[in-house]
Structure formats: structure tokens, C-alpha cells
């Protein structure tokens, strides 16, 4: 199988609140700096302290970064989950456990090598105080892995130097702990393991970062000045990061003034209200939230749609319905976002597939929202948003200027006899807007109630319909401006795979494997709604398509079915809604099962 040099996966089982995620990230960073493609999935519970938590790390020299299907090495540091953790190691794999206490003999497996390290004892002997002991145990454990997996020690030391540049004492105890772990395994086991790391050059022009940081950075670069939000996992760190970056990059050096405002709203209804108010007034404004927040924003999203007010919503999806599993990933808000609010509405959605795209698409979301004067959703999910990904560095064009859409200037207004808010130029679907305070001629009255193309209140059917019809055309028109689907063709392929967002790495890997196995497929990654012509063409060109997505009800398939000309029978679903990131195996197995089924029918 896959195990070998720079190609394996391991998992750390621990208890949350102990700082284990920090040491896992330390390892990931070290591997990244060794030039080895790596991915990490933090599987954490919805509480603050004391419950099982896992960190999965996969290294893959070919750059496959989807979740690994099985583990070569398990670091089982949580007695509560031993049994489960032991069971998850692949046959022939290894398991590290804390041998301070004897392991229940029932848990041993013949086909797995058990590596006992008395971590607690080592730490207790060498450190004082409960607090410190908990912390250093994780570092000692990292030391164990350095030895077993041949992680570059110099890099680790350098990382610790950077981390603790100003905290000498901490730096020292970290080194000590690291050595305790490392030395113990080196002395007692043969190191490294058969699968391990070797420096390579696989991360050129890449960085290791999470999607929420990149979305936040996108908002900074897009020129967002008003951020309004209500805390919710897994969207909170979008705003945490926005605030940090803004504090760093948006404070006037001379005056100390903030060229942004950051508002923690009282709830999500208020947050979207603030975004709408600010956008109405000409600021680039956004919010970030997750499923429950989208539900609460429903009413005002309809107002923004109908009154044609830009709004950017970063939706970092988690598992629904209701509170669901707040710390697990899913793509379950697609339909809720596409048609949010009562009455006839359609919104623009962008589907980011990785942190780099979180940046790009957040910037584009602002442009699209202003160009089309409507809410735009930037959808990511917990996996993309909160896990660190090896992702291409983004390029910034210093010539970029925001596309503010049709906004009349004071000069234009001065020259205008009368401004009509909802009257686009002949043959176009987006009317010009004005910003309050710019010019007396620009004043108009905004309302969510029935209005005609002049902006006046109406209850006259034809006048109401005229505006509604244009809104539909406007949405259609946006298809030409949103990021087109990304299409990868393979010679001989008749079947297509369609997917979106964070499924991308698993689907790519699956397609590569299938291709190697003699089953080439074409691949289309949807990046936005409304769908462009390339989507129609891809659908038309394939006999059938597998739609891979992470929800129960095939929401992307639904959207394709409704909003393209594709025939129903063409679209087959591959669904994963476990809450865990997708693996290539899941995709391959599901497709294989369906192909068999199809063959059976055709036979």
C-alpha cells in the first residue's frame, strides 16, 4: 500500500484543552518546512475542555491532501478512546501509548506494533506543577514523533525559537521535553519507522494556513471597512483574524485612527442588518456566520435582494440541521443560501475549495455584491475554514481597484434632471445607485415593500412584476461574472465527476486513482452559482455525472437540476455527511457501487 517515505498518515488522540492541538500544529509546520506536502485535520469536540479530540496528519509526496483513509501510526494519549483508537490502526501499523500505566491486555493487537513511552512519568520526574506538566507532555510526545518519523530537529528547534522568542523559560522547558520524548524512543526502539519523512521540495510557492484567515485577509484587501458579526463556530475565526489584520494594517500610523469598524452584534439578525445598512451607505461591509446564522438572516436577506443592496456573507458551514455538530464539517447550507428568504429570491454563491480561494472569492464577493447590488455568499466549511492547508500563495495585483458597480458621482447627479433608483439603462439589468450624502439629486427612498422601477411605492401588478422580472435577469446575467467552473478533462472519459468546495482534494485523488485503474473521468468543480455556459456544456457532454458533495440531500445536484437544462437521469449522487472531511476512498467506493448498479441495469 501507500505507506513509505513521505507517504503515510498518523493520528494523535488526546483530550481537548490540554494544548495538544498546538503540538500537532508544530509537527505539521515542521513537516511543511521539510518541503513535504502535508495536511492536518483537527477533529475536536463542541466543548472547551476535557473531551476526546483527534488530530490527523497525512504526508504525501504527490501532494494529495485529502483526509487519509487509514492510519499507519496512532498516538493514543486518551484512555477514554483507547479502544476506538487501537481499532483504527491499519494492519502492520504502529501505536504509541503512554506506558506510565500498563495497557489493558485486551487492547493489544497482534498485527500492530505497540510503542510504549512513559510520557507522564518522564514529565512528572522532570517538571513541576500541574499546568506545566500537562503542556510539556504534548511536547514530549512531539519529541517521540520526531524520532519515529524522522522529523527534522533543526526545523523544530527553529520553530520553537520563533514561537518563544520572548519567553526564554518556556523555550527551555520545551526543548527539555522534546528531548525527553525523543531520547526515550531512540534508546528503546529502532528509529525511524519504515515509513518516515525525508526532506524534499514539494511546497514551493505554498503556505500553511486556514481558510478563515484567508477569507479575513480577502476582506482586508477588498477594502471592507464595516465588519459586523455574531460569534459562532466555525466562523468566528474569520472575524478574529479580520480584527487582527485590521489592527495591524488598517490603523493610521500617525493618528492611531482605525480605518475600519468592527461590531460584535447582538445576534445574526442584527449582524446582517448592519451589513445591509453599511452597504446601503456605500461601505464595503460583510459578516461571517454558519448555518444557524443563515437561518436567522433569512428575512433581511430578502430585503437586500429586493431592495438591491450589496451584502457579503461568509458562510463557514458546519453540520446541521439545528445546532447539529458545531465542530464538524458539512456542505449543508447550499440550498438555504441559494434561495434564502420567503418569496421569489435567488442569490449569488461562491464555493471556495481551499484557503487560497477563500481569499480570492472573498475579494470577488465584494465586487460581485456591488456590481449586482445583491447579497453574495462566500461558502466555505469547517474543514477549509479551521484546518491548516498547504495552499498556493495568492498573488495580489496592485492595480486592482474595487468594482463598485454603478454608483453615480456627484458630477453625474448634478447633470441629471431626475434620478430613478430602479431604472437601468435600456438593455441592461442593473440600475445605477447613489450613496446617501453625495448629492441632493441622488436622494431616494429605499423600501422592502412593493416598488416600481422608479423606486416609488406600488401595489400595481405590472409595476411590481417588471421589477421582479428584471431581478431574475440580473441574477442570470451574473453567471458571466462569477468564477467559472474548473474543468479537468481526461482522454477517453465519458463520465464526469462534479463536485465543489472542500471535496476537491479527495475528488482529484479519486479521479487520479480511477484513471490509473483504467477508468478515466472528467472532472468539473463548480465554483459559483448562477451557473455559466461551461457548466451546461459539461453536463451536455457527458453520458452521466457523479456529483460528490457533503450533505444528505444532494443539494448541489438539486441546484444543477433546477438551474441547468440537464436531464435528471444524468446526475448521480455521491454523498458524504459524516461530519468528517472526505477521503478519496469514500468517493471511489461510492462511484464503484453505482457503476456496478448502472452496469447491472444496462446488462
Amino acid at each position, binding site marked *: 500500500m501507500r505507506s513509505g517515505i513521505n507517504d503515510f498518515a498518523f493520528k494523535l488522540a488526546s483530550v481537548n484543552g490540554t494544548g495538544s492541538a498546538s503540538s500537532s500544529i508544530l509537527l505539521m509546520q515542521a513537516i511543511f518546512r521539510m518541503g513535504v506536502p502535508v495536511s492536518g485535520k483537527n477533529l475536536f469536540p463542541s466543548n472547551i475542555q476535557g473531551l476526546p479530540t483527534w488530530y490527523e496528519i497525512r504526508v504525501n509526496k504527490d501532494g494529495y491532501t485529502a483526509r487519509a483513509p487509514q492510519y499507519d501510526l496512532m498516538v493514543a494519549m486518551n484512555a477514554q478512546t483507547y479502544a476506538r483508537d487501537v481499532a483504527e490502526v491499519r494492519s502492520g501499523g504502529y501505536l504509541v501509548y503512554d506506558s506510565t500505566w500498563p495497557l489493558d491486555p485486551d487492547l493489544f493487537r497482534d498485527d500492530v506494533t505497540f510503542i510504549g513511552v512513559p510520557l507522564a512519568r518522564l514529565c512528572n520526574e522532570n517538571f513541576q506543577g500541574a499546568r506545566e506538566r500537562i503542556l510539556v507532555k504534548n511536547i514530549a510526545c512531539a519529541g517521540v514523533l520526531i524520532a519515529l518519523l524522522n522529523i527534522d530537529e533543526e526545523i523544530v528547534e527553529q520553530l520553537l525559537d520563533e514561537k518563544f522568542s520572548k519567553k526564554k523559560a518556556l523555550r527551555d522547558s520545551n526543548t527539555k521535553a522534546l528531548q525527553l520524548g525523543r531520547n526515550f524512543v531512540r534508546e528503546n526502539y529502532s528509529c525511524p519507522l519504515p515509513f518516515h519523512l525525508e526532506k524534499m521540495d514539494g511546497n514551493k510557492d505554498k503556505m500553511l494556513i486556514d481558510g478563515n484567515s484567508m477569507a479575513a485577509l480577502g476582506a482586508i484587501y477588498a477594502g471592507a471597512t464595516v465588519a459586523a458579526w455574531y460569534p459562532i463556530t466555525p466562523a468566528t475565526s474569520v472575524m478574529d483574524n479580520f480584527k487582527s489584520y485590521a489592527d495591524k494594517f488598517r490603523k493610521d500610523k500617525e493618528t492611531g485612527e482605525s480605518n475600519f469598524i468592527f461590531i460584535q452584534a447582538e445576534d445574526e439578525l442584527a449582524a446582517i442588518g448592519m451589513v445591509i445598512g453599511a452597504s446601503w451607505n456605500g461601505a464595503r461591509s460583510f459578516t461571517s456566520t454558519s448555518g444557524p446564522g443563515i437561518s436567522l438572516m433569512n428575512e433581511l436577506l430578502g430585503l437586500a435582494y429586493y431592495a438591491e443592496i450589496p451584502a457579503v456573507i461568509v458562510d463557514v458551514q458546519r453540520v446541521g440541521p439545528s445546532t447539529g455538530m458545531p465542530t464538524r464539517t458539512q456542505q449543508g447550507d447550499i440550498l438555504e443560501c441559494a434561495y434564502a428568504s420567503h418569496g421569489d429570491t435567488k442569490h449569488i454563491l461562491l464555493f471556495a475549495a481551499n484557503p487560497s480561494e477563500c481569499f480570492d472569492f472573498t475579494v470577488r464577493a465584494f465586487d460581485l455584491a456591488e456590481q449586482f447590488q445583491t447579497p453574495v455568499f462566500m461558502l466555505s466549511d469547517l474543514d477549509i475554514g479551521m484546518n491548516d492547508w498547504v495552499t498556493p500563495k495568492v498573488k495580489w495585483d496592485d492595480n486592482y481597484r474595487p468594482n463598485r458597480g454603478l454608483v453615480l458621482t456627484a458630477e453625474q447627479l448634478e447633470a441629471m434632471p431626475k434620478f430613478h433608483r430602479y431604472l437601468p439603462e435600456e438593455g441592461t439589468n442593473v440600475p445605477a445607485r447613489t450613496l446617501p450624502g453625495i448629492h441632493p439629486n441622488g436622494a431616494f427612498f429605499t423600501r422592502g415593500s412593493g416598488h416600481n422601477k422608479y423606486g416609488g*411605492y406600488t401595489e400595481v401588478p405590472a409595476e411590481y412584476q417588471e421589477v421582479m422580472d428584471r431581478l431574475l435577469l440580473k441574477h442570470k446575467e451574473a453567471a458571466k461574472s462569477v468564477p467559472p467552473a474548473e474543468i479537468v478533462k481526461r482522454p477517453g472519459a465519458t463520465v464526469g465527476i462534479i463536485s465543489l468546495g472542500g471535496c476537491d482534494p479527495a475528488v482529484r485523488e479519486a479521479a487520479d486513482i480511477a484513471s490509473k485503474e483504467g477508468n478515466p473521468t472528467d472532472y468539473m468543480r463548480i465554483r459559483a452559482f448562477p451557473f455559466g455556459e461551461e457548466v451546461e456544456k459539461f453536463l451536455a457532454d457527458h453520458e452521466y455525472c457523479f456529483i460528490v458533495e457533503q450533505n444528505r440531500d444532494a443539494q448541489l445536484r438539486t441546484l444543477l437540476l433546477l438551474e441547468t437544462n440537464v436531464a435528471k437521469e444524468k446526475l448521480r449522487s455521491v454523498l458524504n455527511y459524516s461530519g468528517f472531511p472526505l477521503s478519496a476512498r469514500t468517493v471511489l467506493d461510492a462511484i464503484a457501487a453505482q457503476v456496478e448498479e448502472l452496469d447491472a441495469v444496462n446488462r
Partner: protein
Amino acid sequence: MPSIVKPRVAHPSLKRNDVGLTVRDYEGQMSTLCAGCGHDSITAGITRALWELSIPPHMIAKMSGIGCSSKTPTYFVNGAHGFNSAHGRMPAIATGANAANKELTYVGVSGDGDSLSIGLGHLCHAIRRNLKMLYVIENNGVYGLTKGQFSASADVGTKSKKGEVNLMAPIDPVMLALSIGATFVARSFSGDKEQLVPILKAALSHRGLALVDVISPCVTFNDHEGSTRSYIYTRQHLHEATESNFVPPAREIVAEIARQGGTNVTMHDGSVIHFSRVPDNYDVSDRKAAMDYIREHPAEVVTGILYADESVPEMHEMNKTPSTALAHLPYEKLCPGSAILDKLQASYR
């Protein structure tokens, strides 16, 4: 929300304010409220106050929710920007608008339903943020637009048009605002323009959020059984069109509240409200005294500026934003540029 264009006759003799405009320039569309509705009197008061303060119309942002009261921004200052938003959400939308552009004058108009029920949380949090705005609650004790249900400000014992008696303690926006740290709180009566206009002007000049609770009688749904003979016609028959289908012609209630001893005002339903004014030596800077004064006069509606504190920073001051509108900052000031991005990205490893 329907609006009828008002004939605009130019009176060359009309007085002009500092920006050269007459009070007619601060008027709006013809009101479509019921004849005699208190809200129309408030509209007139707001019109006057804005004119007297010489605020250029296009520098005014009229914000409202949904309700008869929330329709009124259409009826003043045609040349201002207006946003008739969604029920209860005005404070949130105004917060965003204000955040984006501190240069405008924000006039928020809401109802007791809009602000004390569905929008209560937003109101309280706008108060906490000390958003610089005039926040008028046109308080009639009922939901006018949906035909006469009690609002949260209805007094215990009030009878609705349907004959129901309210038993729940009212939420008094003044006491509520005082208890959560509001920096400007006033109360007035729609029918007393002499008092209302100066209060509105003071509120518009306040540093942060100025809450003005204006008692504003609803002609149509403040009536109770027996008070007005003709009502029986519509109330009688169980099987009746659900449209409120007859509204008797009524006149605006006007009364100047006397400085000494206050004034009894008879409402459309025949009930009498005793309005009083805070005494001349009243100390508007003492929050506790304000609450005490109101509690000590339970039988009357105390009017006037009840509390004002100019020492508390408003939202922008708290957030140290620049003096120009965030919405109008040049993009060059906002984008850190490619060099910084490259450097930053280089650190993510």
C-alpha cells in the same frame, strides 16, 4: 407606505434657514395615515426641528422599521435618503449605516411594536453602542398597522378595540433606556409641538443615541367599546371583512402641556392622560433622580428631557474611526498592497 405627491406651492415670503431652505423644503409626500393620527403631528415636529437646525436635506438619513409610525419617513424631508426596512430591525440597519458614514444625521422613527417587541434587543444594543442618532418611538400603545393589538407599552387595564383587557406590565422605553445606560432620554406628546420641537432639536444635537418617546394617540384603534357610537357598526358583526373597514373622521389632538401642574388631555377614546413637565430645576444629569422622579409620579406622564449625558463617547469615538466617513475612504488607504501580502504569506509556514 403608499405615497401621494403633494402639491408644492412656493411661498417666496417663507422664512429661510441657514442653508437657504424654507420649511416646505423639509416636507415629504402627503401622509396616508388616518386623519388625526398622532404620528402626523410628530412628522410635523421632525420637519420643523430639522429645518430649524438647517441640516441639508441630502445629509439626512431617515431610518425606520415597519408600522404606521415607520411609514412616516416618507412624509418628511423628500430630499433626504430614506430606508423603510423590516419590522424591528431599524436599529441594526441604522447601526450599519452610521458605521459606514458618520457624516449624515440619522433620524430613526419606530413604533412601540417595532421597538419594544420584535426589535427590543436591537434597541437595547443600539443604546449600549451609543450610536449617534435621533431615535423616536411613536408610542400609541397598539400595533396600528396590523389593526389594534396591544403593544408592550399598553398599560395594565387598557381595553383593546376587541374588548380584551391587557394584564401584563408595560415596558416603559424611558425606564428601560435609563436602566441600561442610555445617554439621552426624553418624552413628549405628539400634540404639543411647542415642547416636542425643542426636544427633538436637543436630541438631534446629542453626542450619542437620543431616545425620544412620543406619546402619539392612534385614532383608529385606541377606541374602546361604547366610547364612540359609530364604531359599533364595524365591531358588531362577527362575520366582517377583516379589512378595518371604517375609520371615523377624526382630528389631531393638540394640547400644550402647562409648565405648572401639567395638562389633562382627552384621547380619542375618551380616556384622559395627565401630562406633566419636569420642573425647571430638574437635573437632567442625574440618572437615578430621573428614574426616581418618574416612579414618584406614577399617575402622570412626565414629559421633557429626562436625562442627558454628553460625556459618553459615541460608537465611532469608542472605535476611534477617522473623521471622514469610512464609506468614503480612498481604497489606497485600505489595501495593504502586494508587498505586505507576500511578506505575510511568507510567514505562514
